[in-house]
């Protein structure tokens, strides 16, 4: 085999470097561009009235997005409350009891598959499960849809975080005569609590921006969230969708951008703060 000239190899290598730098510029530039657009378009419409008044049909003065923000908050927190206990339990089972069992392997696989299920199908599932039998769209249905999306994510994060706890810690606790339950809850889970908190907060931020599963479960309403179990409930992502795709009016688009800015700010702040906190705790 005749060796290729060095100049050719060096040139090819430089090309790769160039490509790598260009790629990261595209990726980060894309993100910067999106955030820049959201800030530029959203910032002018944000004022006190916008954040505190409920949404109104086009043309009425004093419209805001407060009902959608409140709806998102209620549904996200509801979903967290609903999803976290079973997800933690499931994660504990996978990490503490299911290391070498076929059954646990299968459950782990199910959780992985669930994480890959498109979120709109979760919406369909909840529609069939809740909306059809109960006969109406409700905030409850939306909350359940979000909880189903959160569940496998938190379960797998719990497992991963618990597995990072060294086995010596478990063995010491058990050798002191603690029961398995006390060991898991007081020793293992406690030493892994930063990781658990990060996981829960990140997936909370994630589902707060989910739109697809809410489209035909919580639907949308121009009113404050009223009856949680029987009325459609507004949410910020669905409001954005409604205002931008179904409305020809500039003012509605502007309000959509405003809601997008509030939401993006909320999600990015949660992300950055949790990542920083967790990062500090690691060292």
């Amino acid at each position, binding site marked *: 085999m005749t060796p290729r000239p060095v100049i050719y190899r060096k040139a090819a290598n430089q090309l790769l470097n160039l490509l790598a730098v260009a790629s990261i510029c595209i990726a*980060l530039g*894309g993100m910067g561009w999106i955030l820049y657009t959201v800030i530029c378009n959203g910032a002018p419409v944000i004022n006190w009235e916008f954040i505190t008044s409920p949404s109104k049909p086009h043309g009425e003065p004093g419209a805001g997005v407060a009902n959608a923000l409140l709806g998102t908050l209620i549904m996200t927190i509801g979903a967290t409350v609903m999803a976290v206990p079973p997800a933690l339990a499931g994660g504990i089972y996978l990490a503490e*009891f299911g290391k070498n069992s076929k059954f646990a392997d299968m459950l782990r696989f199910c959780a992985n598959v669930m994480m890959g299920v498109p979120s*709109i199908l979760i919406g369909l599932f909840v529609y069939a499960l809740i909306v059809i039998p109960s006969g109406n769209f409700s905030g409850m249905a939306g909350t359940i849809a979000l909880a189903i999306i959160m569940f496998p994510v938190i379960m797998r994060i719990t497992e991963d975080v618990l597995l990072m706890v060294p086995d010596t810690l478990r063995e010491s606790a058990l050798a002191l005569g603690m029961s398995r*339950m006390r060991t898991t809850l007081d020793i293992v889970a406690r030493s892994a609590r930063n990781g658990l908190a990060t996981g829960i907060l990140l997936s909370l931020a994630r589902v*707060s921006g989910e739109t697809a599963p809410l489209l035909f479960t919580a639907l949308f309403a121009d009113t404050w969230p009223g009856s949680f179990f029987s009325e459609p409930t507004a949410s910020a992502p669905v409001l954005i969708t409604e205002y931008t*795709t179904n409305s020809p009016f500039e003012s509605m688009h502007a309000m959509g951008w405003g809601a997008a800015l509030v939401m993006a700010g909320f999600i990015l702040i949660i992300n950055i703060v949790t990542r920083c906190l967790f990062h500090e705790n690691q060292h």
Partner: protein
Amino acid sequence: MQHTDTLFRTICQAGAVLALLLIAGIFGQLCIHSADAWQHFGLPFLWGSNWDPAVDDYGALPHLLGTLLTTLISLLLAVPLSFAVALLITETPDWLNRPLSHCVDLLAAIPSVIYGMWGLFVLVPLMQDYVQPFLSETLGLIYLPGGAWLLGEDGFGCGFGFLSAGVILALMVLPYMCAVMRDVFRMTPPMLRESAYGLGCTRLEVTRDVVVRYGIRGIIGGIFIGMGRALGETMAVLFVIGNLMENPAGLYSCGTTIAATLANNFAEATGLQQSALFALGLVLLLLSFGIQLITRYYLSLTASKRGEKH
């Protein structure tokens, strides 16, 4: 004490079994509610290309093809990008690679509806005014053989359509693929890499002949993760795809995907149309299930090396 431990174990097991029940429930519900459509149309539903609520005739082909086409475009764009980004992140010094990987991770945190808005108000006009004319006129793709087939009859688009959707999807799946590839690149034993450098290899050669060879299965797994994401993404696609229920006629043409069709039509659908939409959902579920199977197979081959503990 024995009893509380048993109880604790049972409770935990119940939590984990919930995952199985939910998956089974999703399959079950979609099957039950799509039964009407399958009974009415049978398997030809899959390659029927009509969607007409007036005469109750439905077919899945345009949606299916649209889904596959947008996924394909996004992968073609995102695979090289995320490969290069992951490579750069693993090769840069620590002080730089940490913020860089956090930034890339933040891409995944932006809600898809914001991607969609950006696509609708920024990307679509941009595609229409600059990118599409550039591709067809300046680069002359339209005059090449097959160009008309690739770009559509006249080579001019309205900005909406498969290409725009693919571009947005590429940006959205990049962080997921990048995260897996990053782990895969990190798992290459430093010894192997250093020896290759020691022999005088350039970075390109080390990457091609050592890193990629060593982690090819993980890379494939990462690509399939991105594919699963792109397949089921709803909102971003819905905003820019154009929502036209016809078979794709080139990259610039408007169309629809399964997820976009569901989001657009489901709330108003009744009777057979609703059942047909459930059937579309079932098709999407089976697709993403198949992709998950492949993903898990490839990722499990490299799981222990990447530091994932099972």
